[in-house]
């Protein structure tokens, strides 16, 4: 990657819309919207609700399935001229494996991100990423299915995220990315109904940043592989927090909705910060958090 800034999955589609507004070639990479084996229709609307400094979404992984993606969307992604990360999700470990194998065989794909924030239908609907054991199993099975760089994207809705991260590291992940959205909900007090059709959704935006920075810090301390940090980054200063806390790269997601130029401003701002301090590479900042009292 030419710089450490990635467009986050779920916020960028496959880049068709945003490439009309900004020069996507200047990004470090684009991570496409999560695809599943079979098409999924997504959740009942309403799927969005704004919250203080953030928003809830319950999109529900709406996508046309891997075959349609490979035929219709992959060529477009490849034409963008940036590294592309394909995000995959399954309802069973078997589906993750199949997807990893199919997507892993494609030349134009630079990395695969495992979205493990989904329920394992064979384990009573428990989310894959909520348990170190299951997360490790998804990782090791997909590791066997492809030799492409494998990123595991963690859900923050767990008790001990460093534990889950370490299990994925040991199971063969090439990198860990976090955080996905935090479970939340809102209620319309006039009608007594939830604001979201799916009742519970995922919270994103600046409100979650302190939680995300904390988790990135904890995970970076625990694992050996690179960490990709995200959660409410809307400006260069936000991104630098994650980098100093231990992230080798960052993703910008929700901020794109407010300002399509946000990720490019982050790229420029990181460069300005490095130049001003005469630091020759962002890698010197990764995990450079100072815990001493001096």
């Amino acid at each position, binding site marked *: 990657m030419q710089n450490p800034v990635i467009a986050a999955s*779920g*916020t*960028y*589609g496959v880049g*068709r*819309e*945003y490439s*009309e*507004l900004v020069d996507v070639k200047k990004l470090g990479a684009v991570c496409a*919207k999560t695809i599943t084996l079979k098409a999924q*229709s*997504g959740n*009942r*609307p*309403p*799927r*969005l*609700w*704004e919250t203080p*400094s*953030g*928003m809830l*979404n319950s*999109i529900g992984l*709406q996508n046309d399935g891997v075959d349609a993606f490979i035929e219709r969307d992959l060529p477009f992604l490849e034409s963008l001229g940036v590294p592309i990360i394909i995000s995959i999700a399954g309802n069973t470990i078997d589906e993750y494996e199949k997807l990893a194998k199919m997507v892993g065989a494609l030349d134009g794909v630079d990395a695969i991100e495992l979205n493990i924030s989904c329920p394992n239908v064979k384990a009573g609907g428990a989310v894959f990423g909520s348990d170190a054991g299951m997360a490790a199993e998804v990782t090791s099975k997909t590791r066997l299915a492809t030799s492409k760089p494998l990123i595991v994207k963690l859900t923050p809705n767990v008790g001990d995220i460093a534990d889950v991260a370490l299990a994925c590291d040991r199971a063969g992940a090439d990198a860990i990315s976090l955080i996905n959205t935090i479970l939340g909900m809102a209620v319309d007090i006039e009608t007594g109904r939830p604001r979201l059709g799916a009742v519970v959704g995922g919270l994103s*935006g*600046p*409100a979650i940043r302190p939680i995300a920075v904390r988790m990135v810090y904890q995970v970076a301390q625990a694992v050996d592989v690179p960490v990709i940090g995200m959660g409410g980054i*809307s*400006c260069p200063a936000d991104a630098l927090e994650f980098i100093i806390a231990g992230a080798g790269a960052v993703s910008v997601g*929700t*901020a*794109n*909705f*407010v*300002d*399509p*130029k946000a990720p490019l401003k982050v790229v420029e701002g990181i460069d300005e910060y490095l130049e001003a301090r005469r630091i020759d590479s962002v890698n010197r900042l990764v995990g450079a958090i100072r815990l001493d009292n001096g």
Partner: protein
Amino acid sequence: MRQVKSTVVAKESLTKQIFKLTLFAPEIAREARPGQFVHLRCGTEQSFILRRPFSIHQVVGQDTIDVLIRVIGQGTRWLSERRPKDSLDCLGPLGNGFAIDPRVDRAMVVAGGIGVAPMVFLARHLFDADVRAHALVGAVTAADLLDVMELKRLTRRVFVTTDDGTQGTKGIVTDILAEQLEAIGPQVVFACGPEAMLRNVAGICARFGIDCQVSLEARMACGIGACLGCAVETRDGYRNVCSEGPVFSSETLGWGCG
């Protein structure tokens, strides 16, 4: 579509809650079609608020557009504090716009409340295309009626309803729609307003076998079709209100059908 830094040219208070902003935005003005909208950034760099979508109310000359804004929350309140010479970050023009079939020569425009927002632009286009249009405009009370004079200039006749009878016929637009469809026999009805009104309009049009296009509202995040947050159920599955709408035929939505 583009992201442009527009300049506020004028701000006019229309009712207690509704005001009009005139924006200098030539790139948007030149491409805009009736039924399309702009996605406005509310607030400063320091604040996180999602953009708010507003129908393009009018294109004035080559360079400026009007939007009507009803103040209902923090985003619209921030917009209501903008003054001439302020900049406004605009994404637009967005959405599909109304489909005006060249074979149509009689149309009806039905607007409820702030739903009148896209209709002046539409009426202008119909006028320029020599389509004979009639308008039905409804509001809660006389003081809330908008654009009646504008629509009188652009259409053959405007029928007004108010819930409380302070102007026009007492009642809601759908109370008089059927009789006007009989009398005028339009080939297409364009409607915008609260969802309940749109469903009623669709039902009445279906009874008459008249094509009906409705402009929907939805909460939006990206506004451009990337996030899939503004989905509406149609007979072909979920569709984005922002990029595949906001205008849909009632048939596509499966409204008003048996």
